[in-house]
């Protein structure tokens, strides 16, 4: 029987992780992500899993890297300042191709910023926060229900592509209580591939993804944060370096059909299109309804997988519009990416950085102004 409950997004995220097979959590408490740690501290031992509160966020990232190498599905949860501290080892996990999920329930920034207020200002940190060029997957839920379902996808994508996946929540989605329906059907679970006999540990399969043997099974596998060849050992070779860096991007870019997730509302007949994501997309949804009531044909393109950036999708969906609105709670982080695709003249930002929720009216007003 399916189970229905009234819970926060953070709670749904923790339950999604458990449903996905996550059996290890290491973290350091930080608002507004703390409930994820608290719930998993309680729930993980019940299923034989492990929880540890580490001394800081750097240690938390190290611990989930270690647990993942031990064959466990592992996650951590944090917010902006903690996410900044994790960046060194997020890069490590990208290069060493260690599957794991980092939940970032965004707060207002910079610095300690506004701990209990909403913001979407870590979109670029999710992409470029760690040093060096690397590929990354980031997923953004907009509701409590989606926090559950998408978290399962996040864990699966991490295992599938042997990469860190950033689960980019925001304070509104994290702390909002909504109905969560846990389906009775068991979710599809993806497990990392083990190497065939004789297969080198970092030799990519045809999809660009290498197999990952767990520790303790006799593979005697070497993991390093130095650029390494297919044997896993460091090399100074410029050719191997280039090949590796390109592969870290291409294993994701070439498999966008598996990663790309988005949603549309009234976009088919729309004259005005809003692009939004996370909590802002909920206001955008309401703005679309309000516009339609006034006879304005507005539509919404809601981004769910935000990195790798869905440039082809945006190009295709926005071709027929004279103007596209991007609604987000930061200084224009996704606006900039959309502008890269569509050009400056076509993009109208609707932004809010005062830590107050972006309102449907603010978005509607932007559309109305443009229409006049």
């Amino acid at each position, binding site marked *: 029987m399916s189970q229905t409950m009234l819970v926060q997004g953070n709670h749904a995220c923790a339950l999604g992780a458990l449903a996905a097979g996550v*059996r*290890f959590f*290491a973290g350091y408490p930080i608002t507004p992500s703390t409930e994820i740690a608290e719930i998993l501290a309680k729930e993980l*031992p*019940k299923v*034989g899993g*492990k929880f*540890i509160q*580490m*001394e*800081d966020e*750097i*240690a*938390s*990232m*190290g*611990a*989930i*890297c*270690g*647990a*993942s*190498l*031990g*064959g*466990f599905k*592992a996650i951590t949860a944090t917010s902006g300042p903690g996410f900044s501290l994790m960046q*060194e*080892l997020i890069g*490590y996990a990208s290069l060493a191709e260690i599957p794991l999920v980092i939940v970032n329930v965004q707060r207002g920034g910079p610095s300690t910023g506004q701990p209990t207020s909403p913001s979407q200002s870590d979109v670029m940190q999710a992409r470029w926060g760690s040093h060096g060029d690397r590929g990354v997957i980031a997923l953004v839920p907009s509701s409590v229900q989606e926090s559950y379902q998408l978290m399962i996808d996040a864990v699966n994508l991490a295992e599938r592509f042997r990469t860190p996946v950033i689960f980019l929540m925001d304070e509104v989605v994290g702390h909002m209580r909504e109905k969560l329906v846990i389906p009775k059907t068991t979710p599809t679970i993806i497990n990392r591939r083990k190497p065939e006999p004789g297969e080198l540990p970092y030799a990519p399969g045809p999809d660009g993804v290498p197999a990952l043997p767990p*520790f*303790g*099974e*006799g*593979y*005697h*596998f*070497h*993991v*390093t*944060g*130095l650029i390494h060849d297919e044997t896993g*050992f*460091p090399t100074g070779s410029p050719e191997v370096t280039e090949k590796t860096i390109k592969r870290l991007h291409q294993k994701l870019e070439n498999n966008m059909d598996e990663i790309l997730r988005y949603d549309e509302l009234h976009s088919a007949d729309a004259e005005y299109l809003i692009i939004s994501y996370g909590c802002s997309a909920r206001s955008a949804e309401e703005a679309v309804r309000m516009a339609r009531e006034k006879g304005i044909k507005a539509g919404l393109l809601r981004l769910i997988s935000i990195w790798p950036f869905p440039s082809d999708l945006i190009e295709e969906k926005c071709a027929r519009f004279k103007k596209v609105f991007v609604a987000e709670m930061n200084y224009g982080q996704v606006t900039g990416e959309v502008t890269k695709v569509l050009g400056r003249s076509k993009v109208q930002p609707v932004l809010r950085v005062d830590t107050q929720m972006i309102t449907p009216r603010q978005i509607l007003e932007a559309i109305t102004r443009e229409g006049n």
Partner: protein
Amino acid sequence: MKETLKKYFRMNRLPHIWCPGCGNGIVVGALVRAIDKLGLNPDKTSIISGIGCSSRSSGYLNFDTVHTAHGRALTFATGLKLARPDLNVIVLTGDGDATAIGGNHFIHAARRNIDLTTIVFNNNIYGMTGGQYSPLTPTHSKATTSPYGHIENPFDITELARASGASYVARGTTYHTWELINLIADAISHKGFSVVEAITACPISFGRQNKLGNAPAMMKWQKENTISVKAASKLPAEQLAGKVVIGELYRRQAPEYTAEYQKVIDRVTGGNGQ
């Protein structure tokens, strides 16, 4: 190398990159002899290192190995050991790696008394970056970043480990090789967080700046300036001034982290917790 020890090395990764006269090879040699003595299953043994001269060891050793980021070896090891208590997890780290950038992780791993064995290669300097001072550089010594003489006080790793909660603490040197093997073997056998400080000579980056002579002269220093725990216990404090005490310094039986966590699992899943 003794034929029977070759299986512990990735022979195709040798020779190592350490400088002539470096003591790190002796510490690694002591480690594999300790592993051999204990008869550890290599498939169930993982070696985790940080960054620095000592931490290049992981690549030479034929186990599941991780060369982590600077200072973070203990965090990876903590995650691996908690997830997989069935594995023997051994951490190789340098004095800078363990007590500067990794200092916080060091004291917290000790506080948890998690069953890891940490071997700190103490060469008193940052070797790989070319001779900058570390938290173990003695006061008044020269380093490239203390060209007028070092004015900070060094940590005593063994005191730091003990005060933080480690349940086995020992110190050895590369001169006293056989004793070092036994100390490492005891540390691995001990259930809980164990630390072995291995004093190792760095003639190139530390010795040269401080005019300590060549590698044999630095080994001779280890011989002449150390005293065993047993001998030290018979001497009054004033006669111990300037001497470095070696041997098993501290040992206690204390609840171990992964075992305690298993009790929590047993309790909440209805097991008997034993």
